[in-house]
């Protein structure tokens, strides 16, 4: 059995945060119905690539990105801006458990739907909105995408070298994380519903989801008066030295390559010294304790990089790991998919056939349940692929009703 097989989700997720949430639910068997229209197609179908055969090769079915984030889901074409769509949505609500959307505040209201109205149709409905600022407060109408959320929450500021510009995150980390938080919220609400019978409206703010991950810095500011600050690749807490990313021999057509090395304990430092050939400098007073190594990290880092620079990153990792030193290649996706023996062992990049794009790898599902495993059963849905079966089989509409809806423009 699939653990969430009796859960039906109405999914207005688009771009990434919403789709990341419902991908987790769909991978474990929830019936996720993506509601899409030509006026509001998922950005993942149109703007976000790559489109391996060109942006319009197969219309709305051209994006590999969309396929990766929407596998196992269904696609229903329903234009919520048409008045005729309202009755369809009401009928869907009556047989559903969860509504997820990551629009800016006010979009569902504009279409005539609030939580109270959904609740009137389905008394125990679980509704998760996940706008950047949330749906209340002075900034409720502000618009965000991943980098906005990261900049506002403090995550961007905390990534970079001291005195340098913020480096930030090179991707929409908070879209992933907003999706995780929304999935957690759905599952907590399902737990609550099972125990006590009621639904819930969850006003998730992705910005708050970013801030809450910086809690230690916020406490340090209040209790010790210490402003938050980026640390480069160093680590004060836990105290560690060396703790850095060091350049190795360029590979893959001259690409820069790096290896991460960290010593949290004296034993790890001793193991590092020994594995690196017990260089003379390592016995210097500057490096004889965690405290002194941390005080002399600029010198330490330069000496370590002089050692790593002529070596292959993978060689350094295996040499140090064998000696018990935390070390890891700064992997790119060639490494992840072709060289990482552990991810291969864990089968993290399964290949999935898409009827138009062909067979490609996907992000695997990293949650392993021993008795009711999830996984990837099917490619991302084609545009409107399930409109007919959802209206006909699930809602029991007859052909004439469907034709009337189509003629009114509600089904595209």
């Amino acid at each position, binding site marked *: 059995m699939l653990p969430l097989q009796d859960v039906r989700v109405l999914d207005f997720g688009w771009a990434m945060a919403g789709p990341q949430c419902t991908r987790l639910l769909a991978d474990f068997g929830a019936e996720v119905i993506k509601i899409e229209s030509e006026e509001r197609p998922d950005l993942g179908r149109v703007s976000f690539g790559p489109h391996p055969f060109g942006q319009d090769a197969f219309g709305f079915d051209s994006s590999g990105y969309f396929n990766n984030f929407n596998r196992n889901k269904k696609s229903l074409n329903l234009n919520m801006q048409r008045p005729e769509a309202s009755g369809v949505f009401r009928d869907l609500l009556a047989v559903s458990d969860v509504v997820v959307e990551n629009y800016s505040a006010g979009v569902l209201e504009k279409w005539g739907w609030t939580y109270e109205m959904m609740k009137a149709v389905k008394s125990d409905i679980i509704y998760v909105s996940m706008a950047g600022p949330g749906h209340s407060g002075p900034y409720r109408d502000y618009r965000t995408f991943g980098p906005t959320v990261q900049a506002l929450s403090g995550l961007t500021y905390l990534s970079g070298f001291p005195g340098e510009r913020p480096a930030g995150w090179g991707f929409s980390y908070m879209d992933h994380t907003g999706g995780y938080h929304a999935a957690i919220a759905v599952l907590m609400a399902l737990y609550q519903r099972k125990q006590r019978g009621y639904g819930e409206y969850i006003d998730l703010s992705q910005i708050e989801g970013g801030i809450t991950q910086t809690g230690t810095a916020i406490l340090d500011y209040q209790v010790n008066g210490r402003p938050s600050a980026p640390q480069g690749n160093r680590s004060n807490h836990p105290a560690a030295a060396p703790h850095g990313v060091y350049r190795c021999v360029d590979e893959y057509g001259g690409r820069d390559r790096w290896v991460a090395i960290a010593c949290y304990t004296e034993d790890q430092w001793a193991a590092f010294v020994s594995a690196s050939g017990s260089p003379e400098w390592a016995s210097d007073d500057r490096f004889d304790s965690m405290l002194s190594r941390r005080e002399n990290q600029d010198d330490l880092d330069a000496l370590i990089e002089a050692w790593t620079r002529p070596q292959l990153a993978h060689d350094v990792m295996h040499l140090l790991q064998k000696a018990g030193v935390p070390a890891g290649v700064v*992997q790119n996706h060639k490494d992840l998919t072709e060289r990482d023996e552990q991810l291969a062992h864990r089968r993290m990049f399964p290949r999935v056939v898409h009827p138009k794009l062909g067979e490609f790898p996907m992000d695997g599902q990293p949650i392993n349940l021993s008795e009711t495993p999830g996984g990837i059963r099917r490619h991302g849905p084609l545009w409107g692929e399930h409109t007919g079966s959802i209206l006909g089989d699930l809602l029991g509409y007859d052909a004439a009703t469907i034709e009337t809806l189509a003629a009114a423009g509600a089904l595209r």
Partner: protein
Amino acid sequence: MSGERPLDGLRVLELADEQAEWAGKLLADMGADVIKVESPGGATTRRIGPFVGDVPDPERSLNFWHYNTSKRSVTLDLATRQGRALWLELAARADVVLETAVPGALDALGIGYEALALTNPGLVMTSVTPWGPDGPYAGFVSGDLIQMAMSGIINSCGYDEHDIPPVRPGANHSHHIASHHAVIGTLIALYARDALGKGQRVDIAVHDCASVCVEFAATHWFYTQRFVERQTGRHAYPQITARSSFLARDGHYASMSQTRDERVWREIVRWAHEAGLGELFDQFGDATDRFARGSEVLGAYEALVAEMDSEEIWHRGQELGMTWAAVRQPEDWLDDPHAIARGFFHPIEHEGLAEPVYYPGPPYAFTAHPGRLTRAPHLGEHNAEVYGALGYSAADLTAFREAGAI
């Protein structure tokens, strides 16, 4: 509002280090009774700073305070027979065991999943490990920096200049990612428990989780075998994209992007006139001209942002419907009207501190049954309460203590 919380009644036993403390906290803040099992010397995370007044002490770790709100603490030495017996008794009453022990270590002591499921078949046991229970790298040593490197995340983060090393975003995010997956897996297993008629094991590897938290880097490789290039303060991407962050007058950075929207552009020009930079902006024509002269426009942006405050760029940009932002520090939110209006921060009193400390709340506002944070526990603070509920007397506890079991 009833005061009920979504996870009221859920019983969790946590034996976790920094890899999964966040998972336990997320459950505890929403109502689960999370009993944190610590060795008599205290969880290792009590030794991670910063500390109150920078005085290292297991009761003064702000790191521990943040990651362990709303939990209870008992001490237990699993190296002793009595300690193991207490562990088995606690686990027999739990819905969930959340643990980060070295793979096989609990089984070797006879207190792993097999032993626990014998008396408690409904148990969900969630194990978070760096690499998984077996496989070629299962014995590798770990840490957040190593995980962030191995996942591909660091490869996407850094600066336009590739002689500057790529950067690990601070801090502890690989463990957040793993913890989020651990909570999801745990809750799915709990949901399935009724239909399945039993609990199950949830296996979470930090490396797996972080390796599928990389957005475009994955799909560009999967579909077109292209690498993404790290770029300052914006997405790593196969192509080099336009710079988007600029230093503002107040010393903070702000983000701002090119626009094809003439209404927005006219407004930017108006700001420029206010700032005495009108001439610089008046030289540009329509969107076609502006995008053809992209680097000149960005140079003009840089001059303009330098005459404005970062917050002003953010708020005025949002009035135009643009997704621009100020690069804030986390603590900037403490007195922010939006955070206050939403009740995001939860005040918690601490002995010895004159003022309450404001903790960021849960990342999801349950509107009828919201989460609630309480202070992280002192070491062994709930020994009498928890062991008392198992039927042990004060004299028993004294004996346990003298035997080194708790």
